[in-house]
C-alpha cells in the first residue's frame, strides 16, 4: 500500500529556472492492482513515478510504504527498500551495452551480496520464463526490440519485487510489441504483484489491463 500525502517536487528551487514538477499530490495506491498515471509529456508523470518508487525524495510532503514513512530515510535505507520492493522498467529499456543479457539481469542483485551462484540460477530461471535462456550470453546491444523488452522486465524481477514500475513502457514500440509487453504486465498482475505505469498512449488504456487511472496535468492530479 503506497500513500502520497501532499507531495511536491521542485527543481532548482529559488533560482530563475525554478520548476515545479509535482505539486501537492495526494493519493493512495492499493496493492495487487494495475494503476496507470495518465497525462501528456511534461505533466510530471515520470517524476511522480520516481517519487512513488523511492527513486527521489519529495521536496515537501510524505510518501508512505505500508504505513512507513520513507520520505526522510537516508539514501542507504531507501535504496535497500527500493531494491527489495520495486522493479523498474524504463522507456527504451536501458540495458547496459557491452554486458551480456545474463549480466544485465543480475545487476540489481549485486549490492545485496547474495551468493553469485544463487542469483545466477534465479536469473537463468527468469530468462527461461521469458523464452530467453538461449540468449543468456548474448551482448545486450545485439537484441531485437522484443527481446530487449523482455530482458528489461526479467531484470526488474530479479529481486522478486512486489511492485513493478514502468515509465512509458509502450513509447518507441510498435503495436505488436506494445501488446506483448502489456500482456506480460497482465501476467505479473496475475502473480499478485502491483503494476504502476505512466503513459499517454491510448493503446495502454484500451486493452483492459488498467484497473485504476490517475490523471495528471501540470504536476497536479486532476482525477484519481
Amino acid at each position, binding site marked *: 500500500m503506497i500513500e502520497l500525502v501532499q507531495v511536491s517536487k521542485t527543481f532548482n528551487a529559488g533560482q530563475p529556472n525554478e520548476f515545479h514538477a509535482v505539486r501537492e499530490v495526494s493519493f493512495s495506491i492499493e496493492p495487487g492492482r494495475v494503476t496507470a498515471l495518465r497525462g501528456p509529456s511534461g505533466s510530471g508523470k515520470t517524476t511522480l513515478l520516481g517519487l512513488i518508487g523511492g527513486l527521489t525524495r519529495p*521536496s515537501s510532503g510524505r510518501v508512505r510504504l505500508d504505513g512507513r514513512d520513507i520520505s526522510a530515510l537516508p*539514501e542507504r535505507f531507501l535504496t535497500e527498500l527500493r531494491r527489495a520492493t520495486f522493479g523498474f522498467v524504463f522507456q527504451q529499456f536501458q540495458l547496459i551495452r557491452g554486458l551480456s543479457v545474463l549480466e544485465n539481469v543480475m545487476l540489481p542483485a549485486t549490492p545485496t551480496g547474495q551468493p553469485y551462484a544463487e542469483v545466477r540460477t534465479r536469473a537463468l530461471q527468469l530468462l527461461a520464463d521469458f523464452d530467453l535462456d538461449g540468449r543468456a550470453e548474448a551482448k545486450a546491444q545485439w537484441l531485437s526490440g522484443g527481446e530487449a523488452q523482455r530482458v528489461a522486465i526479467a531484470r526488474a524481477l530479479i529481486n522478486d519485487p512486489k511492485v513493478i514500475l514502468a515509465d512509458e513502457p509502450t513509447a518507441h514500440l510498435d503495436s505488436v510489441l506494445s501488446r506483448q509487453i502489456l500482456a506480460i504486465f497482465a501476467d505479473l498482475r496475475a502473480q499478485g504483484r502491483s503494476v504502476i505505469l505512466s503513459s499517454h498512449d491510448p493503446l495502454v488504456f484500451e486493452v483492459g489491463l488498467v484497473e485504476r487511472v490517475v490523471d495528471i496535468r501540470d504536476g497536479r492530479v486532476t482525477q484519481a
Partner: protein
Amino acid sequence: MIFQPAALALLLASSLNALLLLASGVFALSLLRHWNPTSGSERQIALERRTYLVSTLVGLSLLTSLPALALFVHNADAMAPFFTGAMCAVGSLKVNAWGMPALLTMLAGFFLAAAWLVLNHLDNCGWDTPLMRGKYRLLLLLLAPLALAQAVLLWLYYLNLNPEVITSCCGSLFGPAAEGVAADLATLPLGIIQPVFFAGWLLTLIAGTVFILRGRLGRGFGLLAGLHLPLALAAVVAFIAPYIYEQPNHHCPFCLLQAEHGYAGWVLYLPLFVGTAAGIGAGLASGLDTNPRTASLREAAPRVASSLAKLSVAALGLFGLTVLFYLQRSNLVM
C-alpha cells in the same frame, strides 16, 4: 636532507591529507548549520551526497596513516648515519624539536581516523543517522586540526634537519642516567612493571572475551584497550626491548624496527595498534547501545561492537603471545 624520496613522499602525503581534511572541516561547518534529515530540500540532499565524499576522504586518511607512520620511522632510522650521535630513529627524530611531535600526531591521526570511521559506519546503520552532528563536530574540532598540525610539524621537521647538530642516541634518552619520561620508563622496577603489564594484558583480553560471549562490559573493554596501549609501550621500553636485544641497558623502542633484530618492532607494534584501535571502536560502539538518542542503532551497535571486539582480542592476544615468545627465546635474564 629534505630531498630524499621518502621525505618528499611523506610531505606530499601529509600535505594532501591536511588539505583534504581541512576542506572536509569547512564542509562540516556547513553541515552542522543546515543539517535537517527530515527535509527533502535540495540543500539537504546535497549535504547528504557530500557526506559520502567526506567519509571516503577519512577512509583514505586511515588507509595511508599507518604506512606513512611506518615509512616515517623507517626513514628516520635510515637517516641516522647522517647525524652525529644517532644510532637509530630516535637520534634522527631528536635532531630538532619537531620530530617527536610529528610522530605523535601521526599516531594520534591513525587512532582518530579509525574511531571516526567506526562512528561513521554505525551512523549509517541508523535510519535517522543519529551520530551525524557528533561525527562532524569531531571532524571539525579534532581530525582536521590534527591533520594540519601533522603536515606543519612534518614540514618543520624536514626543513630543519641540520646534520651539524649533535643529537642524542637512544641510549642516552632511554638510559638510566637521563632525565625525563623515557628514562623513567626504562628504569621502572621489573618487579612492578612485569606483573602489572601481564595482568593488564590478561584483564583486557578477559574483558573482551566476556563482552564477546555475554555482551556485557563493552565500555569497560574499550577503556581497558585504550589504557593497555601506554602500558604496553611502557613495558616495551622497560623490559621487552632489553630482552629482545639481550642487553639489559638497551631500552630503545625504535631500534627494534631494524633488520638486525628481526624486525621485531613491526611484529609487535602492528597488532598492538590495530588491536587498540579495534578495542576502542568496540567500546565506542557498545557505548551507544543504551543511549536513548541512538535508538535506531540498537541492533547494529552490538553487532559492530562484537566484530570489533573479536578483532581486538585476536590482535592483542597475538601481541601478548609474541611478547611471551620473545621473552622465552631470549638468552637474557634480568
